């Protein structure tokens, strides 16, 4: 049979299976290969909290979605065009998202009576006619995988585990992808020659199955996107943060210290930095979140570029320590990779609901700088910016990322270290004129390291006298110091570049977002602008302080809309500070926004004259 090759511009695929089925590996392999093929792309890994939930259970379903295109891609896609379901539970959880008429590739062998019952289906959905609205391709992926590796005489468990590469092989054929990157990856990953060979055979067999079986009458081509020339790589948010901190250490000349306690979804930053001791990185896995922040404070006092990384519950535990760093006026970067809360919440699901905690979650008048990354690649630059402000302004900076940015990946243009601006750091060394709480033009106090003769001094959490830093309970001094701690933040705002507005520079509507909503807002704004409305988009990087030009920008639009993955936190801050009638568009489902949701919200506010 001569098969047709059909050209399409954009495709979204979701791989779904048991948490032990290797769906994240399958997804990231497809991602790397697709990036190498020159498409623009965005990904969304969505996995359960359970490390290994019972096989076949709904709770154990792990998914990985990728959208790739010959056009610019801002989101991993609302509804996938293709769903690869490795078992009935994966089908049950994900079918509701599949586009009407979309393609379903189901591992038919896994649709046993037991698995069907376990997923809560009364009858086999592949047989009962309930999938008529979709293009259903039933393939015995498990059985064909076993056959492909039969000669290698692996035990059944190892043999079955190769099935994700069979599925990947089918999809590689379907979208005309070269398998060579994955072949190399399998060769480097599997040290056992038998397992290596088995996975290679499964991948190849899947590819050939797509090509020769009567199942598919066509394959698809997604042409290269127009991407600026340069060197690229795939990067996730947590990788980009780690590399950003390493870069900031090099740009400043400071030694890097990370005090951290394991917590989802931030632990990968600890893992990554712990593996780069050759760059002098000191990582300390502390006994708890409090020790993590406190060790970083001690390291900052001793001249480190000091970090602590955590998620929402950990930020709560670090509150008192962050207050201490504020009083000591030491540089410290606190990373909160946000997850769904409150309390333990949903650790593997994303949310942006720690903004108010970052802003206000300390005793007393305790303002700290708050900065947010808007995409995986942006995490790199946000990390450098947070470090720059921390060391040049001598203050704690909270950097907000979230579970979506942390784990999803995008192709990213690699920066040249030599072209990035250095971070200027000066330690105080002169005995003459030394006062621990004297201030420079940024209102930053001197950084005087232990070991400096004649600069012996004591600092602490007790209110201190202006200039000398001695303990002071003086009424007027407390008011002066409290106000100074606010004015120090304003100095950041005074040095910010003009705020970037994407889309229309004035008009009907300004959409203001922060953090991971960047992609969906950008996609939604562009979609509605095509129909003629004048819409601008500002994605705030600095949340404390706000940029000085934000008020004037808001006044250039008739309305302001603030979509957030929370119940309306940024919108509260904007309304309180600027008395602006900004409208909230909240979503709190542990999932990022879809483009269609943003489009809906924009249309709604534009029509609500």
């Amino acid at each position, binding site marked *: 049979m001569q098969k047709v090759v059909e050209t399409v511009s954009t495709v979204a695929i979701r791989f779904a299976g048991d948490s032990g089925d290797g769906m994240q590996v399958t997804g990231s392999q497809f991602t790397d290969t697709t990036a190498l093929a020159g498409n623009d792309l965005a990904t969304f890994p969505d996995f359960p909290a359970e490390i290994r939930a019972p096989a076949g259970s709904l709770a154990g379903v792990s998914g990985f979605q990728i959208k790739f295109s010959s056009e610019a891609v801002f989101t991993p896609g609302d509804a996938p065009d293709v769903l690869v379901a490795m078992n009935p539970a994966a089908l049950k959880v994900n079918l509701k998202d599949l586009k009407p008429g979309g393609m379903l590739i189901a591992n038919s062998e896994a649709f046993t009576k037991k698995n069907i019952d376990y997923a809560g289906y009364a009858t086999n959905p592949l047989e009962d006619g309930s999938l008529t609205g979709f293009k259903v391709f039933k393939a015995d992926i498990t059985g064909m995988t076993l056959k492909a590796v039969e000669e290698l005489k692996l035990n059944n468990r190892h043999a079955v585990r190769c099935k994700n590469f069979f599925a990947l092989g089918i999809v590689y054929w379907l979208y005309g992808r070269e398998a060579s990157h994955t072949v190399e990856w399998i060769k480097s990953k599997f040290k056992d020659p038998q397992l290596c060979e088995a996975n290679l055979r499964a991948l190849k067999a899947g590819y050939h199955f797509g090509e020769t079986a009567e199942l598919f009458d066509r394959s698809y081509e997604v042409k290269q996107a127009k991407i600026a020339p340069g060197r690229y790589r795939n990067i996730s948010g947590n990788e980009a943060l780690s590399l950003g901190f390493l870069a900031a250490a090099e740009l400043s000349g400071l030694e890097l210290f990370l005090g951290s306690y394991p917590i989802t979804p931030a632990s990968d930053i600890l893992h990554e930095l712990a593996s780069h001791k*050759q760059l002098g990185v000191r990582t300390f896995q502390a006994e708890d979140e409090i020790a993590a922040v406190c060790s970083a404070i001690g390291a900052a*006092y001793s001249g480190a570029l000091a970090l602590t990384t955590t998620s929402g519950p950990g930020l709560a535990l670090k509150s008192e320590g962050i207050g201490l760093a504020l009083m000591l006026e030491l540089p410290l970067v606190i990373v909160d990779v946000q997850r769904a809360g409150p309390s333990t919440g949903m650790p593997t699901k994303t949310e942006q609901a720690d903004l108010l905690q970052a802003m206000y979650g300390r005793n007393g008048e305790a303002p700290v700088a708050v900065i947010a990354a808007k995409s995986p690649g942006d995490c790199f630059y946000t990390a450098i910016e947070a470090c720059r402000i921390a060391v040049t302004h001598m203050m704690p900076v909270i950097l907000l990322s979230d579970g979506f940015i942390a784990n999803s990946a995008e192709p990213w243009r690699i920066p040249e270290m030599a072209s990035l601006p250095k971070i200027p750091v000066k330690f105080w060394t002169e005995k003459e004129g030394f006062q621990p709480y004297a201030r420079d033009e940024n209102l930053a106090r001197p950084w005087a390291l232990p070991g400096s003769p004649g600069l012996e001094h004591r600092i602490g959490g007790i209110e201190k006298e202006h200039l000398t830093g001695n303990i002071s309970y003086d009424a007027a001094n407390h008011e002066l110091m409290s106000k100074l701690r606010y004015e120090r933040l304003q100095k950041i705002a005074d040095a910010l570049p003009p705020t970037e507005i994407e889309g229309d520079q004035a008009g009907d509507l300004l959409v203001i977002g922060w953090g991971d909503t960047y992609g969906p807002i950008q996609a939604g704004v562009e979609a509605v602008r095509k129909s003629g409305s004048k819409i601008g988009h500002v994605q705030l990087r600095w949340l404390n302080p706000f940029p000085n030009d934000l008020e004037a920008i808001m006044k250039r639009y008739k309305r302001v809309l603030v979509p957030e993955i929370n119940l309306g936190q940024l919108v509260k801050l904007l309304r309180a500070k600027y008395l602006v009638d900004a409208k909230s568009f909240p979503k709190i489902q542990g999932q990022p926004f879809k483009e269609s949701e943003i489009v809906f919200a924009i249309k709604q506010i534009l029509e609500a004259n």
Partner: protein
Amino acid sequence: MRALNIYPQFQHTDPSTQTRKDFVTDQDVRWCPGCGDYSILAQVQRVMPTLGIPRENYVFVSGIGCSSRFPYYMETFGIHSIHGRAPAVATGVKAMRPDLSVWVVTGDGDALSIGGNHFMHVLRRNVDLKLLMFNNQIYGLTKGQYSPTSPVGKKAKSTPMGSIDYPIDPISVALGANGTFIARSFDVHASHLQNILKRAAEHKGTAFVEIYQNCNIFNDGAFSLLTEKETKSDHVIEIEHGKPLRFGKNLEKGIALDASLTPKVVDVASYGEDKLFVYDETSEIAALIVSRLHAPEFPVPIGVFRAVSRPSYDALLVDQIDRAKKGKRETVQELLDDGQWTVK
């Protein structure tokens, strides 16, 4: 590797020129008149110039409580941190700067109640810092509540009918946490305390010193049995490495172990000196047994319970970094370039 070296280099103070006065700050000492902390401060200030360390290389880190005001009175670098967390802050200091002499000053509430977790972990990691815990068996700064070392029945503001909490034994906890140097002394026992401080300073690793300290406002006389002239010789025993355990006005009493290793008080003359328990500060079992000697049944031991050698956390950390630097020479740019492709 690093293009920049921005860390300043200094000509250090000659330690042989330093005197006690060099370690006294211009701040008024604000402890209550008669507080045991005054004596401890004096002994620390006497010992500091004898250790051969330039003043600028000392860092004193404290938590919260009466004892934690200590850094303000030491003309060294210092951080008055938050309640219970001084060991964690000090760990960060030492991890970055193993060349510094880092001292933690804490109290029974600070170290064993709110900071119990950090106390335990700093000891097991064996971070090279000195941890002085002033134990007055009471909360002083919050004006008189019972503490984790107060005896059962202690009547305090929060326990009008007496405490029903069984106290913790700091030395036993430190042993359980695999501390490498564990000692006890008294605020008023100047020469003993100075000797213990010197030995702590010389130890490579976490040196934990419990210092019994009288709070004359909220818990006056908590240790009078152990400090008063008439009673102390019968209720305190000085343990010394390689020497039999003897006490009493004329060292007429001793500690011996029965067949099941249970300690008992014996009369030296009738029991025989050669059958006494000979102390060995490197023996874990000896330390465990002696740490369980409590008044009034037994004399309270002071001295060095345990002194053993184990690599410190900071030394191991530096060693790993040194080895990593020899192994791989990746730059940040090389890490960024990992997995790259080129779009033309």
